[in-house]
């Protein structure tokens, strides 16, 4: 029989990058029995969650449900009291975190100009020159403000800069905590388009929002959180047509969820 020149799986020597370390996938995400206690309260309580390999997951839930805490836990910024988190079979580590990007609910910006805020991250990831920076600023509509101190930006502009910075790290997983909370309708569209585009490129997005319409527009699946637990996790279509949990039904009907 003739030998066929079949490329080996994982053989990247022809990728032009030289000795690339094998890039293990971070997905799927598997969370079991996750708990986080602070101040004598169980803020995250026996939480289980599985996220599939691709797509955009929307996280909904009333204020104080634990959405931001969940993102922090998934990103490894805080350590769980109990339970396990595994990203593609890997426990949380510096390397895993470096391949994720978190857009904080409250933007944290360096006391520098808009452009320098991006330069900081780009340099960190080994990029040089200003091409990529300008491209990112253009993408979020901040190019004309590149030289302005980042802290003088408006609330919405700060959020857009945070997103640009997250994209600058070229993450495999994008964790977004209400990134469009204070944006005008046009900027919301821009951001949604950026996230959708990232999703198409294979970036796995987890997107916290209070905007039900946005969840419908963007989400492949929906995680509904309530009192530190996942009250419901379903495909977007299923969730919006017939939410199974009472809390989710109340939430969507605009009733107060306690």
């Amino acid at each position, binding site marked *: 029989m003739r030998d066929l020149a079949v490329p080996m799986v994982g053989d990247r020597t022809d990728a032009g990058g030289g000795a690339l370390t094998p890039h293990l996938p971070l997905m799927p995400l598997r969370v079991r029995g996750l708990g986080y206690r602070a101040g004598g309260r169980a803020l995250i309580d026996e939480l289980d969650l599985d996220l599939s390999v691709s797509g955009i997951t929307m996280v909904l839930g009333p204020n104080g449900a634990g959405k931001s805490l969940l993102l922090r836990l998934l*990103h490894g*910024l805080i350590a769980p009291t109990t339970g396990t988190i595994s990203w593609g079979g890997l426990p949380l580590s510096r390397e895993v*975190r*470096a391949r994720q990007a978190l857009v904080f609910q409250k933007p944290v910006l*360096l006391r520098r100009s808009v452009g320098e805020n991006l330069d900081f991250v780009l340099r*960190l990831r080994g990029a040089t020159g200003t091409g990529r920076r300008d491209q990112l600023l253009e993408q979020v509509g901040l190019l004309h403000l590149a030289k302005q101190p980042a802290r003088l930006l408006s609330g919405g502009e700060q959020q857009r800069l945070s997103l640009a910075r997250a994209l600058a790290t070229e993450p495999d997983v994008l964790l977004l905590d209400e990134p469009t909370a204070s944006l005008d309708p046009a900027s919301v569209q821009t951001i949604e388009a950026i996230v959708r585009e990232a999703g198409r490129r294979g970036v796995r997005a987890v997107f916290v929002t209070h905007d039900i319409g946005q969840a419908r527009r963007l989400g492949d699946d929906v995680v509904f959180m309530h009192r530190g637990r996942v009250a419901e996790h379903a495909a977007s279509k299923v969730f919006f047509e017939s939410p199974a949990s009472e809390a989710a039904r109340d939430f969507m009907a605009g009733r107060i969820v306690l």
Partner: protein
Amino acid sequence: MRAKSIVFRLLDLHLPAFRKFCIFTPETEQGLCILHDFAESFRLAFALVVSGDRDLYEIILLSVQVSLTALLASCIIGFALGTLVALTRFPGRGLVIVLFNTFMGLPPVVVGLLVYLTLSRAGPLGTLGLLYTPAAMVIAQTILITPIIAALSRQIVEDLFGEYDELFRSLSVPVHQAMAAVLWDARYSLITVALAGFGRAIAEVGAVMIVGGNIDHLTRVMTTAIALETSKGDLALALALGIVLLAISMAVNAAALSLSSTAARQAYA
């Protein structure tokens, strides 16, 4: 007026040197005479400053040299200590912070005394022969202002790092780069701290007097010269030095103010 004469009497009590300039006649009130001396001393003082008197400038130069050197040393030690304590957690950290803050108000004469004891012939570092040299003065001032720089920079670095911490961890920023970024972004505040340290060093008299000895052409700085000339009654030289000291102090404070307003304007602060 009664109140006025009380003030003048107080002045008279506290500054016996003024008396020398007074010619007591039944008609002249002591107060008026002092006023006259005051004005005359100011005139002479300005003349001295403007004339570029060599002795005067020698003293000013040495003051600035000693205090700048002490500042440099204090910044190296103080910023390093401040940053270290700001970014690390260890048992006894609270105590270290309390000590920093306490030592901010160290009485200069006490520092002078301790340095004196250390550097004097019989002291542990007596063999270095540093007592009554500018080096001794630098050491004393360094000890005096290092706690100020360490304590204030600790607070500044810790506050800013607290703000950046989650972002840096999120981005997996290596420790040394995180530290550099915090120090860089806090630079305006840190320079203001350095200016405050310099202000304290150059205005201080107790420590340099004890360890420097106020030796003419060797260890005489502005503050010790002022003390000496005042007690000798050479008010013009004392005032001239006082004016220069005030001017330096004002310049330093103006610099600090303009820095912090620049920082605020650019929202870096």
